[in-house]
């Protein structure tokens, strides 16, 4: 194909351009022509098509997401907010923590191993780009039914990809989720979270300032993989009979990324960059336009200088390639020599490809001919914005008007069967088959990981300062009521951190939904965002960033609305955390919080094929009081253990606690069926020494949290009223499921 230059574009305004194949709509194409005052060159068209994709431009979600800013609570903790690669939070002692969660759903369905692997790689680079050392990852995963044939293809590949990449980077995997539902068959969700640590003074931003400064590309060479990953793959639904889209999936090389991390941290430590951006979705198109846009706007790039894995790539392909493990830095000329030296030490390929210029145009040349000349803001930030039509879907009134009808156990035999059934159901069963494929020990700072309520890492070996993170979503509740669902997920994630005694500080989110072109899906999305923004305002937790993944839909079937909420918290001394379970007999067990007949959206209802009823209503004021109880209980050393109740209710919570250290419990319950199965939010099991009874009572009374006695610890069985479930049979039920499904 002949080179298309700006000069040619000016003289051939009527040339037919393949904008539709690149994912652009006719009016979007018209707008590009209007911005430029001529037709775009093929390279410009390539850039606009990837940057104006749903994935990069947030064109359907932007009008809703601005609530996170409009309703932002006052927070002294937020050092860098939404808009940069990741938000940065002050955790004290001069430390700052950056964390973010992103989706890699579509690539992981097409090519499970590489899709999941590069999902980890991408989020880790986002964290690195802020100037931080990545210290841990987490991965909430969702699949079709556990016994579906395609799940057997997708799940092992995704788990191996998460492990293969993360393990090789030396990042402990400290938690996540594995959830099954039929709406995720054909649309598995692979969300990846990374957290990084730095000193306040080390924060880096994506901006190209200072005319004459150099644009330096370093890391892997550019290849033909992942072309159009954000546009033709991640911003469309999967249809029947289409192409496999496999070439749009990137291929990762974790070794190169590990070296890139160490090399970058050494470069940062010597203060050699003015601005920095990683190359992820939309590759060089994104990095150059965002860096230029973050500065004064002027930048000149010689695209022919980009080192290539495949010398036959065209300029358009180079601009669109999503080859992994690449970074783009803005470097002052006098610091280039040292920059090159550090890259040489790590055997990292590095090339100066351009410079920051005066003016406000991003100019890209190919062998000295101008192929791109655009105002970078129009590429990076001023893309189309859609107010998509939305309407409450018809199913809402229908399901909300029904009530859950499920068997409620009462006799000893029924109780035992129910507890064992819940322990073994795939959504609640032991996930060791998955987590044992992840390195949780590397770096030597992991305090908590699966199956604890949250992941926790130490960030200072002397002071024992640490951070805790949890990610949660309850898509069944979000389906019944997306507004409440988002609030409840936020509350759950915050509670999961607080059980260990860490104070929630900030929120990230990964909003996974079906097609935004479906008004019902758009309504689910809008309600979820409204719920999350209201919830964050009420709980005083700022949203630091996040990610929207639309088009998780095959044909007419959209996934359940799945807003995955990540909450980060801080703990001043990790040695004093409250553990998730008890190690000794003779402790008293109490329940904090109220239990109602909340079966709608519960695991028990799901197991009986019922997705009806009304979700619980989030009471965030009460959740905040409960958090204060948990934090005070840690400081006052009242708790021997604390464990959050969520999916599977008290039955699942007790199962997890007694199996953790093989210490049983004897529990007495009134209204035993509902007590075991209800998933009323805002509840925590705590274990205390009997001598702490008064302290616990007065703490609960002070914060007006209902306290009820459950029983005592000890023995080699879980006894609930007259039912006796030996720990051996409970463990067998809990651990056999994944072995049977995936070995």
């Amino acid at each position, binding site marked *: 194909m002949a080179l298309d230059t700006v000069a040619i574009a000016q003289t051939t305004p009527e040339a037919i351009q393949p904008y539709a194949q690149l994912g652009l709509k006719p009016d979007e194409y018209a707008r590009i022509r209007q911005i430029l005052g001529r037709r775009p060159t093929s390279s410009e068209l390539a850039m606009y098509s990837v940057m104006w994709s749903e994935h990069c431009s947030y064109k359907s979600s932007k009008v809703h997401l601005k609530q996170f800013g409009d309703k932002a609570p006052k927070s002294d903790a937020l050092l860098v907010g939404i808009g940069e690669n990741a938000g940065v939070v002050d955790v004290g002692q001069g430390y700052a923590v950056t964390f973010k969660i992103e989706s890699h759903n579509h690539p992981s369905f097409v090519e499970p191993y590489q899709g999941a692997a590069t999902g980890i790689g991408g989020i880790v680079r986002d964290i690195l780009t802020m100037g931080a050392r990545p210290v841990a990852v987490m991965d909430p995963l969702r699949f079709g039914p556990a016994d579906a044939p395609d799940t057997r293809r997708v799940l092992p590949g995704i788990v191996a990809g998460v492990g293969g990449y993360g393990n090789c*980077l030396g990042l402990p995997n400290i938690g996540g989720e594995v959830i099954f539902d039929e709406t995720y068959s054909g649309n598995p969700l692979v969300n990846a979270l990374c957290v990084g640590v730095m000193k306040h003074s080390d924060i880096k931003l994506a901006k190209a300032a200072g005319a004459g400064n150099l644009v330096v590309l370093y890391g892997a060479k550019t290849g033909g993989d992942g072309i159009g990953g954000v546009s033709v793959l991640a911003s469309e639904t999967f249809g029947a009979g289409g192409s496999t889209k496999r070439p749009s999936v990137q291929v990762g090389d974790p*070794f190169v990324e590990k070296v890139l991390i160490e090399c970058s941290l050494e470069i940062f430590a010597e203060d050699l960059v003015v601005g920095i951006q990683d190359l992820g979705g939309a590759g060089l198109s994104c990095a150059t336009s965002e860096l230029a846009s973050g500065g004064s706007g002027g930048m000149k790039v010689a695209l022919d200088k980009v080192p290539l894995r495949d010398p036959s790539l065209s300029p358009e392909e180079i601009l669109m390639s999503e080859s992994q493990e690449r970074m783009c830095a803005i470097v002052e000329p006098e610091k280039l020599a040292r920059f090159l030296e550090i890259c040489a030490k790590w055997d990292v390929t590095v090339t100066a490809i351009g410079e920051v210029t005066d003016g406000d145009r991003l100019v890209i040349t190919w062998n000295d001919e101008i192929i791109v000349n655009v105002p970078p803001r129009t590429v990076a930030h001023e893309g189309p914005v859609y107010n998509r039509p939305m309407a409450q879907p018809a199913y809402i009134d229908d399901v909300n008007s029904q009530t859950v009808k499920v068997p409620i156990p009462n006799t000893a035999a029924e109780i035992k069967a129910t507890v064992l059934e819940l322990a073994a159901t795939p959504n609640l069963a032991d996930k060791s088959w998955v987590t044992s494929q992840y390195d949780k*020990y590397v770096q*030597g700072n992991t305090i908590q990981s699966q199956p604890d309520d949250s992941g926790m890492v130490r960030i200072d070996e002397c002071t024992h300062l640490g951070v805790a993170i949890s990610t949660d979503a309850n898509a069944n509740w979000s389906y019944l009521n997306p507004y409440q669902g988002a609030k409840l997920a936020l509350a759950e994630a915050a509670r999961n951190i607080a059980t260990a005694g860490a104070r929630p500080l900030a929120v990230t989110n990964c909003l996974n939904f079906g097609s935004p072109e479906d008004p019902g899906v758009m309504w689910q999305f809008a309600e979820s965002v409204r719920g999350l923004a209201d919830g964050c305002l009420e709980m005083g937790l700022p949203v630091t960033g996040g990610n929207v993944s639309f088009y998780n839909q095959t044909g007419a079937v959209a996934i359940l609305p799945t807003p995955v909420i990540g909450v980060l918290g801080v703990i001043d001394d990790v040695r004093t955390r409250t553990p998730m379970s008890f190690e000794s007999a003779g402790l008293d067990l109490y329940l904090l919080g109220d239990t109602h007949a909340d079966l709608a959206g519960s695991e028990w209802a799901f197991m009986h094929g019922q997705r009806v009823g009304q979700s619980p209503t989030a009471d965030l004021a009460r959740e905040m009081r409960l958090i204060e109880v948990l934090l005070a209980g840690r400081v006052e050393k009242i708790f021997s253990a604390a464990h959050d109740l969520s999916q599977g209710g008290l039955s699942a919570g007790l199962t997890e606690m007694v199996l953790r250290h093989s210490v049983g419990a004897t529990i007495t319950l009134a209204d035993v069926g509902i007590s075991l199965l209800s998933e009323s939010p805002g509840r925590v099991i705590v274990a205390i020494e009997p001598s702490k009874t008064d302290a616990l009572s007065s703490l609960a009374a002070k914060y007006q949290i209902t306290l009820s006695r459950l029983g005592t610890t000890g023995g080699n069985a879980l006894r609930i009223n007259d039912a006796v479930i030996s720990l051996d049979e409970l463990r067998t039920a809990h651990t056999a499921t994944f072995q049977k499904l995936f070995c």
Partner: protein
Amino acid sequence: MRVGVITFPGTLDDRDAARAVNVGGAEAVSLWHADADLKSVDAVILPGGFSYGDYLRCGAISRFAPVMNLVIEAAEKGMPVLGICNGFQVLCESHLLPGALTRNSDLHFLCRDQEIEITNTQTAWTSSYSVGQKIVIPLKNGEGSFQCDDKTLAQLEGEGRVIARYVGQNPNGSRNLIAGISNARGNVVGLMPHPEHAIDPLTGPTAQGLGFFTSILNDMVK
């Protein structure tokens, strides 16, 4: 006493190993793969990780790193060398130890708390333990199955050079449940599980791995 910890590109557990050395009472000294300089250390640790990505055989490229020539030379003169996980693989590729580490029998990466039994306390790295002592330390690798021919196996067993064995079910298909071996002289030890991740119950399953790092001090006193 100075203990060198080598960093190859792709090494992951170097900072953990250095921490363990320091907690054990020696001074950790960072060594870079490309430097032909052992910085006058008294012993060397090759830590875990995926050196050069392990895309060829594990350890096959690292074995040719400039620093390895010095390590091989020093080891042959009796300097204590401990290879953990990827480091064990590098020692096998360097022919400082016999055999090879192959893919785990179930073909998955496996990370878990593993009980092992110390079976030889005469080496530079195991003298803090007693024979038959059982300890729990993390095991985490994809290619940890120790393999060798029958003659080598008979020699290792006959000479008491199996220094640690897995207890219970074989986690990765290693012959004779071998978790670690030494050379004939006892100064070079390769170990698949990770004692450097078990120096503090706060961050590891136990503190029972610390013995490997205190043993080396006993060795120097001798």
